[in-house]
């Protein structure tokens, strides 16, 4: 079986979530990567070094810049003549592109897989991860998005795949990129951080969030996350959100501060190795999943914790 994986990249490097998709792809067959974009030589070279990859297809075209699904999907559909499965990491870009490819191929996509059981059978979470379904696909070709936290990351060194240019990209003429506001931070990205400190509504406002959560995160070299309630209340921007509809994370240590633990939040972090909860309500549901709980007023205990580390 030949498996095509869409690579998420920034032009120069390959994003971590792609490495998990490569591991999932390798369970199905030979792994071929597609690096699409404009000015992507660096990313293509990085992709060719990923362990277990046989070939890297490079589509360098202005129409493919910014990963516009309307322009990327038709190219992938053409390439799929030579492949049996198409995989993307379940990132916002991957989720945007894959169903467009699936519908054009007349295939029912399998979203957010957690495991590969066989060539046509996979497990995936439903109901915010409150249930795990095992699904079997009847489609001749498979289109799959891969949950990053469910698969080990493929090694970024050790591979020596051949690089092959592909052409045929066109601008569908229905969409254009206007701009973006991408937060830049010195802190580790949430989806790859080893430690995450997350804050909830109990922080009361954005100033408190910055003053309480961030010093602790910086002391630990941790990424900073938030519950939906904290994001909706405007304490922090949307890219901080951990949960069913935000980011899915599974760090070594997840420290939940002032987060009650709604099922939608737990859906995004309950696969963390160790969960530490700090909350003044000892009946908060977060304590039911926490390995270590501290009942206390976050405004007292978090600064104390930061100072003692």
């Amino acid at each position, binding site marked *: 079986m030949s498996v095509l994986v869409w690579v998420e990249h920034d032009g120069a490097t390959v994003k971590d979530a792609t490495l998990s998709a490569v591991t999932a792809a390798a369970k199905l067959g030979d792994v071929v990567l597609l690096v699409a974009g404009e000015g992507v030589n660096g990313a293509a070279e990085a992709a060719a070094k990923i362990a277990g990859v046989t070939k890297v297809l490079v589509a360098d075209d202005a129409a493919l810049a910014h990963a516009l699904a309307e322009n990327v999907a038709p190219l992938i559909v053409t390439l799929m003549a030579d492949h049996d499965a198409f995989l993307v990491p379940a*990132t916002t870009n991957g989720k945007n592109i894959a169903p467009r490819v699936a*519908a054009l191929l007349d*295939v029912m996509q399998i979203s957010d897989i957690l495991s590969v059981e066989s060539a046509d059978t996979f497990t995936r979470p439903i109901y915010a991860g409150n249930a*795990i379904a095992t699904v079997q696909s009847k489609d001749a070709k498979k289109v799959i998005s891969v949950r990053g936290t469910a698969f080990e990351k493929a090694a970024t060194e050790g591979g020596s795949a051949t690089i092959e240019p592909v052409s045929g990209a066109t601008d569908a003429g229905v969409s*254009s*990129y206007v701009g*973006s506001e991408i937060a830049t931070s010195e802190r580790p990205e949430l989806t790859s951080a080893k430690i995450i400190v997350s804050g909830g509504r109990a922080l009361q406002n954005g100033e408190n969030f910055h003053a309480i959560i961030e010093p602790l995160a910086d002391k630990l070299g941790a990424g900073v996350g938030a519950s939906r309630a904290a994001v909706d209340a405007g304490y922090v921007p949307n*890219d901080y959100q951990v949960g069913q509809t935000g980011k899915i994370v599974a760090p070594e240590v997840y420290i939940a501060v002032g987060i009650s633990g709604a099922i939608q939040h737990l859906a995004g972090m309950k696969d963390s190795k160790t969960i530490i909860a700090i909350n003044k309500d000892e009946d908060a549901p977060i304590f039911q*999943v926490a390995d270590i709980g501290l009942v206390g007023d976050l405004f007292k205990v978090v600064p104390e914790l930061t100072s003692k580390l």
Partner: protein
Amino acid sequence: MKVLVPVKRVLDYNVKPRVKADGTGIDLANVKMSMNPFDEIAVEEAIRLKEKGVVTEIVVVSIGEPKAQDTLRTALAMGADRAILVTSDTKVEPLGVAKLLKAIADEEQPGMVILGKQAIDDDNNQTGQMLAALTGWGQGTFASKVEVEGDFVTVTREVDGGAETEKLKLPAIVTTDLRLNEPRYASLPNIMKAKSKPLATKTAADFGVDVSPRLTTLKVVEPAKRSAGIKVADVDELVGKLKAMGVAK
């Protein structure tokens, strides 16, 4: 401009799903069902565009069991103008839903289709993108802001790193994210009024679309449970634990 808004009837957001003992799915007997929260946001956005004078008619569509009629009535009570119910005996997957919506879009010729980005039952996050593929229209997924100007819609999207803005030619597909708006509650007079708004009922077969499922669910199980751990008495004990784990020095 006419806007089409598909809505789905799902297990209520606040109800904890229970896996059936025989492992065939989630127990939906005698539990509260509601409109998918992302679809409520889609209905609300259509109503706001109508209030701004951009949209002239809002048509809501639901595909599923006859009881989805309740969900359509809720949308009508919020402010949609008319409804189409497409009933199906079998569960229709996103690909089948997208094909039915394509057939309806061919008939209705909407300027925009606004959908929820995902349904909170199957968590697929596919239908809007699939409909965009079948219509060949642009797709503004995970929208946090929608602005219609002339023949274009500018959509600000919630992406992993922050926000991204795209400009799409109309007609176009928009899928909603959580922070696009806060849906209104239907008032009692509007709930009464909604009962007399037009609701057409059709079947999947009426559209000549093959919606037979491509995926077979072999089993549904509960995820591995995390057991509650220990409680520490104070910060010093927590610091000790962190040091023992090698997280702190």
